[in-house]
């Protein structure tokens, strides 16, 4: 009887997931943590991963923190109430992947891949068609080259097991488990993600792409990433891709910690395009030591609700933090994004540029925090957020918080909301463009100076993606 109930519960959970993505699960009970969250689920994950006792304790402690913390309902959207924590599958082991055939992929998704110019082999992976795209080879080639430089590029389990002397010191230190409810959740059940160490003075020329590595193993929805750039080193890390990625799991809660030691530079590029059934609640924070630079380039196009505020703690003299953010909210979507800059040393500078576009009934929100305490001097922040509203019932909100004390510190914040001017559209239509083409050209112009900051192939794809999103938005 109990077994039947369990099966039923499981099927329900899968059904919830399947509503958007048309995924099927291979029925396999070999490594199954089941549905819902409890101390035994956390123990189970830790056991499967063969983790050391301190990690297990860390997970258990985080679970308690998660249970003790309230949902952030006094400022956040009430849509969060729709997350049913007891209906979620917290761990998918090997052999329990989502599969479907290419024929089952919806036509509009296929069309999107074509329009974006995604290579044939990648399309199948992105659409969730199992084991068609061989990324293993690409990943091992990349790994070999990096190893020559002394770069470590692995998952959290390997990282904490094989290199505790490097990763343990910083793991959970930039974002402690108690930082917020979703960071605590991630700390309890994390699996998958990237642990990266760049040795002193090493400048990695090519961007490290999570895409290849994560595809080679099982990608977890509770991704945990820790990047440590040692003194004077430089690295660019890219996650996500412009193509829509159909996801089985409705809740994604990643924790990303960046550590830029003296004089190091980290650039972290995200393109988030989850399917529109996903709650994407992510905590991202970097620490910049003396003269170091942490730069987040963040682009949010997909998901039902994204809440993500990449931050930089400017801990060393002369450190620099930057967040460049693009958000596009279409019908039914809420992009609640922003940035945090915590100045904690003299002569630190930070820059935030956020641009959002709301289409149809989409809603985009900017939330920001700039903090300069009284002991500091010569700190500077510049914040600009611009919002573009396309349709009559599109919505945008801006909620920055700025707190300044101390000597010779200065902060400037500006935000503007506008629509595409009728003159611009008229001008372009006079030259033979359709209204839709004119609109997407104007929107691309609006984000152009940020799109330029992305690596070449991303920026081309991003432009096409924006064109695609703008289709049918006018007229």
């Amino acid at each position, binding site marked *: 009887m109990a077994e039947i109930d369990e099966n039923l519960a499981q099927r329900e959970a899968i059904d919830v997931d399947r509503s958007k993505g048309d995924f099927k699960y291979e029925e396999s009970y070999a490594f199954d943590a089941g549905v819902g969250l409890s101390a035994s689920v956390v123990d189970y994950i830790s056991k499967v991963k063969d983790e050391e006792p301190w990690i297990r304790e860390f997970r258990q402690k985080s679970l308690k923190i998660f249970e003790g913390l309230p949902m952030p309902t006094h400022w956040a959207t009430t849509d969060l109430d729709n997350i049913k924590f007891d209906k979620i599958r917290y761990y998918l082991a090997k052999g329990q992947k989502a599969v479907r055939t290419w024929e089952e992929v919806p036509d509009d998704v296929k069309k999107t891949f074509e329009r974006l110019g995604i290579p044939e082999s990648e399309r199948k992976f992105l659409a969730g068609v199992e084991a068609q795209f061989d990324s293993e080879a690409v990943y091992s080639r990349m790994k070999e080259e990096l190893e020559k430089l002394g770069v470590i590029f692995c998952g959290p389990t390997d990282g904490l097991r094989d290199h505790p002397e490097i990763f343990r010191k910083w793991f959970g230190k930039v974002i402690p488990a108690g930082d917020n409810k979703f960071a605590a959740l991630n700390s309890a059940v994390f699996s998958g993600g990237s642990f990266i160490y760049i040795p002193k003075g090493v400048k990695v020329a090519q961007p490290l792409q999570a895409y290849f590595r994560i595809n080679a193993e099982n990608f977890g929805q509770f991704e945990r990433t820790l990047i440590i750039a040692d003194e004077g080193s430089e690295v660019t890390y890219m996650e996500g891709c412009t193509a829509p990625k159909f996801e089985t799991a409705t809740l994604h809660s990643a924790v990303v910690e960046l550590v830029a030691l003296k004089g190091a530079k980290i650039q972290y590029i995200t393109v988030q395009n989850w399917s529109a059934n996903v709650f994407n609640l992510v905590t991202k924070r970097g620490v910049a030591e003396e003269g170091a630079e942490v730069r987040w380039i963040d682009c949010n196009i997909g998901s039902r609700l994204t809440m993500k505020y990449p931050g930089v703690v400017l801990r060393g003299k002369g450190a620099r933090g930057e967040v460049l953010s693009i958000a596009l909210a279409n019908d039914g979507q809420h992009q609640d994004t922003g940035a945090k800059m915590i100045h904690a040393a003299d002569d630190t500078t930070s820059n935030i540029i956020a641009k959002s576009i709301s289409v149809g009934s989409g809603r985009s929100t900017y939330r920001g925090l700039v903090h300069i305490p009284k002991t500091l001097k010569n700190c500077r922040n510049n914040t600009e957020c611009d919002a573009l*509203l*396309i349709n*009559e019932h599109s919505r945008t909100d801006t909620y920055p918080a700025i707190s300044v004390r101390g000597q010779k510190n200065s902060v400037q914040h500006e*935000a*503007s909301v506008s*629509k595409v001017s009728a003159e611009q559209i008229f001008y372009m239509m006079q030259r033979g463009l359709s209204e839709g083409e004119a609109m997407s050209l104007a929107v691309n112009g609006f984000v152009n100076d940020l799109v330029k900051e992305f690596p070449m192939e991303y920026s081309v794809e991003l432009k096409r993606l924006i064109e695609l999103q703008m289709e049918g938005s006018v007229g």
Partner: protein
Amino acid sequence: MNVVASAPIGVLDVALHSAETNQFRAQDWFAVLRQQGWHTFQSLPMPTRDDEKWRFSDARSLSLDGYAPAPEPTETLAAALIARSHFVARPASLIVHVDGHCVLRPALSPELTAQGVCFETLTDALRHHPALLQEHLLKHAAGLGGAKFLALHQAWLRAGYVLFVPKGVEIRQPFVSVNWTSTDGAAVFPHALIIAGENAVVSIQDYHLGATADARALAISACDIHTGTGAKVSRLAVQGWGSRTQSFQVDNTCGGRDALITSVNAAVGSRRARLENTVRIDGPGADVRLYGISVATGEQEFDQRTLQIHTAGQAKSDLLFKNALLGKARTIFSGLIKVAPDAQRTDAYQTNRNLLLSPDAEADSLPGLEIEANDVKCSHGATTGQVDENELFYLRARGIPLEVAQELLAQGFLEEVIAKVEDEEGAEALRGMLSAKFHQV
């Protein structure tokens, strides 16, 4: 464990409140209004620091203990304070309160009376114009976090004035109201109700002052402005309570069709002062301008919360709040522009500029936008910084001492808002109070 809680006294004393409310038995609805205020006050919790609407405020130190309604002032004191109330040489009319008691009843010229203008104490207006008051008195909730304080204001409502200017009447001379606190620990609840009829033109100046520089009091004031089509209202409100006073001010303004409203809120006094200003723009063509200005010194906390709600399209609102900070002072500006889905062609702007003149001062800024219509022009800007080095150098190169140069530049910074006060005497009074703050430090 026998813990004996001390019985609430002063403004928290239920018997005292009932006794005063009983005096209004003749105006039954008003007694009910006060009683409702009392119940609402009891049912609401004190704000805490976790409350988003009190973010950055020092909510922990909020306390309503130890304040009580004060007795009527002596005639000598009243006369002395009336003598200090002439900020405008020839006002349309002047009303003076001391510790919540009216000591100078306003007189109106025969022409104004003939035109149907009403400028009376709240208690007189209760008897003379009950219908007008029932329609307009405290019709808006405090939506910015001060609901408990506004409820206490409603519970103790008695002092204040009603200014009604009928359709088409234009009055150029400003009306002036001065509220003083004198008794130590006095609790005052000044109310201002301004109703401007169709195409009426009126200007009012409100001064809230302490009889002594360090007067200790609790002041919870409220002001409601109602405007008819095409009305023009301009208001200057100066918060200059004594330096040990806690002040809460809840203002509500309704901008009717084609109305033009200008309000300048200045803050110089109190230990902590919170201003909540809500503007509802519900008529197309309305133009509402909100200005704020302060010089915060010592350990003062000025907490400014504003909300511009656009429910009608083709209207305009513009906000500029400027703060100069010295000592360990703190200012919080939290502003929100809300544009409703159908309020197309709205122009709404919001600017907060803070000038830090001391390394220990703190300026917090929370400028917000919530826009649900697409054909709008909305923007906000917030800056916090120091006096410009080049400007300072320029002045010093001409032999002006550092302190003087800093003050000159700070006054230049503030002048932009002072210039918005239409009445020259009012502007001069304000200029004097602001500049005096630079010399107290």
